[in-house]
């Protein structure tokens, strides 16, 4: 009797849990699904119904939206985003791995102090450096180019990634490395042939996060990029919304979907790296 009561109780609580998960989940996901469906709706229908299924599927919003309102198409902005993001991701992975290797596997004078500094910069708000950094980069002649993004990435400038990599490397067994030292490998060969390959998952999750952050970055391009020719997707979208005022919302929704697409694709392609990345480093967001 008692156990039957317990079973009934468990079933009810399971039911409530699922009901909550589904209902709350729908609230979470609905805006994202809606923006996709809105891109396929006619402009009148967008405001009329809550439905995720368009009454009549419209596809020319993608074509017209892509052409943009000004001199440049979204193709240009899209390409610019890749031109900016790919080197940033590449250099971030290389530089952060090298630096983490130094911290994780060597002893050198002031190492503790450096590590403390690294951890403190983790918590240093970016905005306090914003203005002098702009003035500095302006003096270097880097404004209106992608250099303010790419060159710092060569110097392991995101402490999150360095920290995450150090944590990861500390978890790796040292025996193989020690064997390689006995075989006469130097430290760089060890990094290249042994430690590096073992860090592949951490490197991938670092790359994914850097890709998504840089892809979505708005304030950076807003400050450093002036000419429309060099606009990123974020700036292009903003320009579109500002100039379009009340017209063609479905085109704007279509471009919004396009802007989000690379992140969605990466997210679904690399979910396990994602979770690993967040769990090991405690990444912001």
């Amino acid at each position, binding site marked *: 009797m008692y156990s039957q009561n317990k079973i009934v109780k468990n079933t009810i609580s399971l039911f409530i*849990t*699922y009901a*909550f998960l589904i209902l*709350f989940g729908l609230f*979470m*996901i609905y*805006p*994202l699904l*809606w923006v996709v469906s*809105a891109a396929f709706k006619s402009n009148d229908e967008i405001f009329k*119904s809550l439905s995720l299924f368009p009454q009549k599927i419209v596809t020319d919003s993608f074509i017209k939206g892509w052409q943009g309102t000004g001199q440049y198409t979204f193709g240009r902005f899209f390409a610019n985003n890749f031109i900016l993001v790919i080197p940033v991701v590449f250099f971030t992975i290389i*530089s952060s791995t*090298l*630096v983490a290797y*130094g*911290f994780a596997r*060597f*002893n*050198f004078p002031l190492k503790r102090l450096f590590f403390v500094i*690294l951890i403190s*910069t983790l*918590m240093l*708000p*970016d*905005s*306090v*450096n914003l*203005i*002098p*950094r*702009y003035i*500095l980069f302006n003096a270097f002649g880097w404004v209106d180019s992608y250099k303010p993004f790419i060159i*710092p990435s*060569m*110097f*392991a400038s995101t402490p999150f990634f360095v920290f995450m990599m150090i944590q990861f490397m500390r978890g790796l067994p040292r025996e193989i490395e020690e064997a390689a030292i006995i075989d006469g490998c130097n*430290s760089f060969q060890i990094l290249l042939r042994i430690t590096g390959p073992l860090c592949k998952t951490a490197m991938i999750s670092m790359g994914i996060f850097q890709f998504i952050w840089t*892809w*979505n970055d*708005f304030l950076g391009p807003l*400050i450093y990029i002036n000419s429309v020719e060099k606009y990123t*997707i*974020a700036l292009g*979208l903003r320009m579109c*919304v500002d100039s379009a005022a009340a017209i063609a*919302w479905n085109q*704007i929704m279509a471009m*919004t979907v396009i*802007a*989000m697409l690379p*992140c969605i694709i990466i*997210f679904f392609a690399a*979910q396990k790296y994602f*979770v690993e990345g*967040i*769990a090991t480093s*405690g*990444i*912001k*967001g």
Partner: protein
Amino acid sequence: MTANLKRKDLVGLLYVLPWLVGFLVFKLYPFIMSFVYSFCDYSMLKPPKFVGLYNFIYMFTKDELFPKALLNTLKYVIITVPLKISFALFVAIILNMKLKGINLFRTVYYLPSIFGGSVAISILWRFLFMKEGIVNKFLGLFGIEGINWLGDPRIAMFSVSLLAVWQFGSSMVLFLARLKEIPSELYEAALVDGASRLKMFTKITLPMISPIMFFNLVMQTINAFQEFTGPYIITGGGPVNSTYLLSMLIYDNAFKYFRMGYAAALSWVQFVIILIFTAFIFRSSTYWTYYEYDEGRF
């Protein structure tokens, strides 16, 4: 042997060198200069001119937008951080249960977070909360009359803050990772002792996740104080400056009016406020965080 050690030390230093150079050039130098500029009048056309405390006096006595932006920013932090973290914890606890299809739910709850403070998601938000937008349409189904979510100065900040709350995914994943590490023996022992669920939550779960709670609190607070893109795109700081944040005041002064000195002074005030808040969380954490090993302590 010692010569060998020295050489190895140098090699280690060599690996760390890129970070060290980057730190000096892109972090330490700007940090010092931002302090210096905050005492200057600097438009970038002429060399900086030392004006003493003028920027700070102006900020606190003449700039009408500053107290407004400061208050709005505090409001934003106080709305978003606790809500975001409580949602993250609540959902993480549910997602920690062994249920069928749990991975799908994890994906769904995390997905909004990958877009962070992007323009795309901010545009979507603006659209959802417009007067004739989807949120009001939805309320209409229940016979509730539409609210002017973004147009009413009393509500706009709340509507804008919801965007950040919606993106609780990464805090959630951190909680989830920690919850999985709690040894089940603890709960089993408590069960034997006849502890209630609430008791188990407050006596086992909360202490065990407290370091992550601390980390989330610090990070989310620092981020919330610097929020820019969301409010900038959704409302542009309006209506009647009700969503105008410190970061926008800094941006406008620096890149619209080219008052670099004043903007630097503002960013220092923002920095000091963040510092005070983080210091408070750090100090208070000694009373409520629990560490199994002492190295875990900051």
